[in-house]
């Protein structure tokens, strides 16, 4: 399996995807922005199809759309992103726009499928380099921002009074989230990125309770999903994204089961 270049690239890409999803996912879950993350991935689809339509690389289209949305939500207060109604409106509107752009650009429908569901085994060397560079930039920013971001995410009310620049931190976080979605989309697809950004971190918090361990375990869960998914996909020829979602959902199922058993014992 590893004698193929594209498989090696996919496995390496998995490590970086796991790294950024671990650091971002733990904060996404703590800030309760899972739903907005989902919306943002649909906005990403819209952006990618805009890229196709406008003749720019889909990644740039995605970055443009998702960062603009992140900025908008950050400035109007993160609450907007948690409101059910605004989430439905945004998802619907951007999915519609995505279909429009694809139709206008007269690409075949398989292009839409590849944006929506990704193609980790389709990435080449230059895709991988883009992914690695963007991941490193993102991780450096997260590291520099780590303390205020953690305070703000896990104790919003405490941070509001005892820490400054909370709104700027929120905006930077949402832009980092937009960046995460755009760079992982080409691999797992814009419809399924939020799987890696939310489910592993949701599951991890049932097993461990310190911030470092949560990030480490989330990393493990994402990497397990991506690597095992790649392997199973190679063996069966079924889509990688399918296996990734199944593996992550199973991990979450185990976490819930563990929680149920624990509460039953108490």
């Amino acid at each position, binding site marked *: 399996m590893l004698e193929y270049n594209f498989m090696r690239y996919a496995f390496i890409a998995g490590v970086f995807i796991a790294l950024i999803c671990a650091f971002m996912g733990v904060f996404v879950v*703590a800030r309760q922005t899972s739903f907005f993350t989902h919306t943002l991935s649909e906005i990403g689809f819209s952006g990618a199809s805009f890229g196709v339509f406008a003749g720019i690389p889909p990644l740039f289209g995605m970055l443009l759309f998702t960062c603009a949305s992140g900025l908008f939500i950050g400035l109007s207060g993160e609450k907007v992103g948690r409101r059910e109604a605004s989430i439905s409106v945004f998802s619907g509107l951007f999915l519609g726009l995505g279909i429009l752009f694809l139709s206008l650009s007269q690409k075949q429908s398989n292009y839409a499928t590849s944006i929506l569901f990704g193609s980790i085994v389709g990435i080449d060397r230059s895709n991988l380099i883009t992914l690695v560079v963007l991941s490193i930039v993102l991780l450096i920013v997260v*590291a*520099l921002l*780590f*303390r*205020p971001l*953690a*305070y703000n995410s*896990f*104790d*919003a*009310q*405490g*941070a*509001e*009074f*005892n820490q*400054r620049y909370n709104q700027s931190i929120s905006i930077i976080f949402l832009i980092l989230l937009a960046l995460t979605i755009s760079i992982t989309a080409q691999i797992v697809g814009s419809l399924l990125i939020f799987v890696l950004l939310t489910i592993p971190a949701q599951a991890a*918090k*049932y097993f461990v*309770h*310190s*911030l470092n361990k*949560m990030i480490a375990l989330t990393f493990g869960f994402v990497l397990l999903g991506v690597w095992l998914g790649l392997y199973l996909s190679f063996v069966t020829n079924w889509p990688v994204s399918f296996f990734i979602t199944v593996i992550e959902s199973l991990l979450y199922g185990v976490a819930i089961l563990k929680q149920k058993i624990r509460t039953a014992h108490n």
Partner: protein
Amino acid sequence: MENIITVSHLDLRIPDRLLFSDLNFSFPKNKLTCITGENGVGKTTLIKHILEDLRRHQNQHVQATISRNKIQYVPQLRNIDDDYPLNIRDFVSFGLKKRLLPWNSKKMKAKVEHILAETKLTKIADQPLGHASGGEKQRAYLAQALCSDPELLILDEATASLDTESKNFLLQMLKSIMRDKNLTVLFITHDPELIEKYGDYELKLQNHTANLSQKEAAN
């Protein structure tokens, strides 16, 4: 008597309502001052206004002998439900003084352990905060605030949901920490028993004015 914050000729209004007019009072240093008054009189609003003025260095009506970053405000409401996953140690560590590197130095870790011991949280430090009792949660909020070495601590209704035993435990602990660290405490509360037992001073807010009086415990 030394004062830590002095408020003079302060008017405070919220949209369509006057809360206070011409407020004049001081908070004595190293004492526990209870801030009392009916619901809706504007206790929290007043404190937030004072903090905001200090942050913006607007000292026309509010003068303080310390800077804003030496003040910790422990808010009344916090989004900590039963599912809250983070353990008490990490939650408390959020209060540590700013540092760029994401990990804590040995000295910082030792400080957190010391404060956990002081607030009697060492035994449950590895448990998720969501599983802690009301009293333990309040002690964790207090511990987090202590991590930044404040000189003034403001507790907003910290005992509102606690039983008699837990609130007395919290206040006794607070009193002993105040002595050790030369801490000044403002305590927004409704609880007459606690005011009598632990208050050095009481700032009573009513009819748009404020009255500071000395209490038994001060002697």
